[in-house]
């Protein structure tokens, strides 16, 4: 087990290193000069040079790369070109939106998906199953930003139950803040819940076909008892994997929804930073998100290996 963990850890470090190279190099070739963007149409050449100097853009790429990676290792993500504030502080601000939003969406999606999936599996082939599965098909197919727009139209513009966008801020109190995250969380949760409900259902059905359930059924348990007492626990493993992956996805993948609702989250930060060529912000946030995904995968792998020793030999 320890050997396996060490080996996975090694590969995690290598992955992160390669990722940092890929990110840095691809941003090196992005056209557009942050200094020119800051100073606008009437900027003079000497003024631009002075600003570039202050931003450290005159250094060579190798030096900038080592500065960046070295800084990150000690928790220093550099200083934003446009805002001139530490990137780590900006990330911290934005995480206060992105993390709760991801958790909120994940909670909603789980709360919808579990009952839906179990219900459909329990009534497999019956009308309820067909209706639930039909709804999940729609949920998977709906573009979430369009769904978000429709929700804004109905709940924000027509009914005025919610704000159309913006984040109230945690200073405003827990409920106002959560309220401003509600529509975005629903928009994010719908497709996720649909996927999760489908996984839940098929995973349950798979388990119900396995030998130990058949044995239990043979001993006289009803189908429903077998499902609740034995199948559910075993079916949870693939479901939890999906939840783990969805969490990583939600953290980074909310970018379009953040744009629709104008939420100051991580995705929007990157989006704006790319537009302003605030490359240090882009690099650091993308690196952080990659780290989150890699870490989640690593933990999922470890958890699997702990549960099922056979898997240790694989990969």
């Amino acid at each position, binding site marked *: 087990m320890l050997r396996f963990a060490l080996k996975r850890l090694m590969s995690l470090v290598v992955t992160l290193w*390669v990722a940092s190279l890929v990110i840095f190099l691809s941003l090196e070739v992005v056209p557009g000069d942050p200094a020119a963007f800051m100073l606008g149409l009437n900027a003079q050449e000497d003024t631009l040079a002075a600003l570039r100097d202050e931003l450290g853009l005159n250094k060579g790429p190798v030096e900038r790369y080592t500065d960046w990676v070295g800084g990150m290792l000690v928790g220093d993500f550099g200083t934003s070109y446009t805002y001139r504030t530490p990137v780590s502080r900006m990330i911290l601000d934005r995480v206060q939106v992105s993390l709760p939003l991801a958790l909120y969406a994940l909670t909603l999606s789980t709360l919808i998906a579990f009952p839906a999936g179990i219900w459909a599996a329990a009534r497999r082939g019956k009308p309820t199953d067909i209706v639930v599965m039909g709804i999940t098909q729609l949920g998977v*197919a709906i573009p979430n930003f369009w769904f978000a727009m429709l929700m804004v139209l109905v709940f924000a513009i027509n009914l005025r139950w919610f704000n159309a966008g913006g984040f109230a801020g945690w200073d405003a109190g827990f409920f106002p803040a959560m309220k401003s995250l509600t529509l975005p969380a629903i928009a994010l949760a719908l497709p996720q819940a649909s996927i999760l409900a489908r996984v839940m259902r098929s995973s349950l059905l*798979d388990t119900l076909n396995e030998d130990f359930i058949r044995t239990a059924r043979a001993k006289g348990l009803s189908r429903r008892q077998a499902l609740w007492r034995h199948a559910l626990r075993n079916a949870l493993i693939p479901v939890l994997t999906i939840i783990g992956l969805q969490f990583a996805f939600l953290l980074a993948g909310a970018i379009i929804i953040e744009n629709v609702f104008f939420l100051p989250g991580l995705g929007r930060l990157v*989006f704006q930073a790319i537009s302003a060529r605030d490359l240090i912000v882009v690099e650091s946030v*993308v690196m952080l998100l990659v780290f989150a995904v890699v870490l989640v995968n690593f933990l999922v792998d470890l958890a699997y290996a702990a549960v099922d020793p056979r898997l240790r030999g694989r990969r």
Partner: protein
Amino acid sequence: MNRNLAFGAGLTAVFVLAALISFAWVPQDVTQMDIANKIRPPSPAHPLGTDHFGRDILSMIMVGARTSIAVALVAVGIGMGLGVPLGLAAAARKGGWLDEVIMRANDLVFAFPSLLIAIMITAIFGASALNAIIAIGIFNIPVFARLTRSGALSLWTRDFVLAARVAGKGAARISFEHILPNVTNLLIVQGTIQFSLGILAEAGLSYVGLGAQPPTPSWGRMLADSQTMVSFAPHMALFPGLAILLTVLGLNLMGDGLRDLLDPRLRRDRQ
């Protein structure tokens, strides 16, 4: 033929047909603007209304289908074209350094937040349909590589492959002559699903302005254009959104239906 497959294929066919017909005929030229008749609700002259430049929305959706389908199709092509050989190679050299490198590279691509990378790619190379294709295609590669590898691994232990090895055929030849034909079903099913994901991804990218550039109509951009007008012209947002929804739904149902039809393992489970 099962119900899912029939319904899904029917829906998909509607949009593919609309795209094909649009090459020959559309109700109104989509490059023609008629500012005086902008933002009109549906009427006999314009069954789905007009947009903010007075263009016919039905025509825009028909031509937009071309963009969506083309982008998603080519992206799937890229994913298969590169992913399948990589997967086959990894399976043939299971446990070797080649396998290790390919699988690690796969993990690496998966670790990147796909949408952000797509945005970065378009920031570097500029927004265009081609770059949207590349951005979506890249993330299709590991999907097909993994699928092919896992499908191929189970085949390498089968008797007919052993027979071919004994006959002295090389790994590459076995992969293409014996393994590939037996993973085709898997690939078709996955291809349908990636196709539908590609349509969604294209819509998302062009919604944030990174897909096909005007005047080429695209569903995502139609939605973006309609966003500020949704409060007084909901038809502008409704129809392109429905087009995306129905196409993706059709493809997903078709994918499910194909899986039931083609994938022997799943067929057993359904008994």
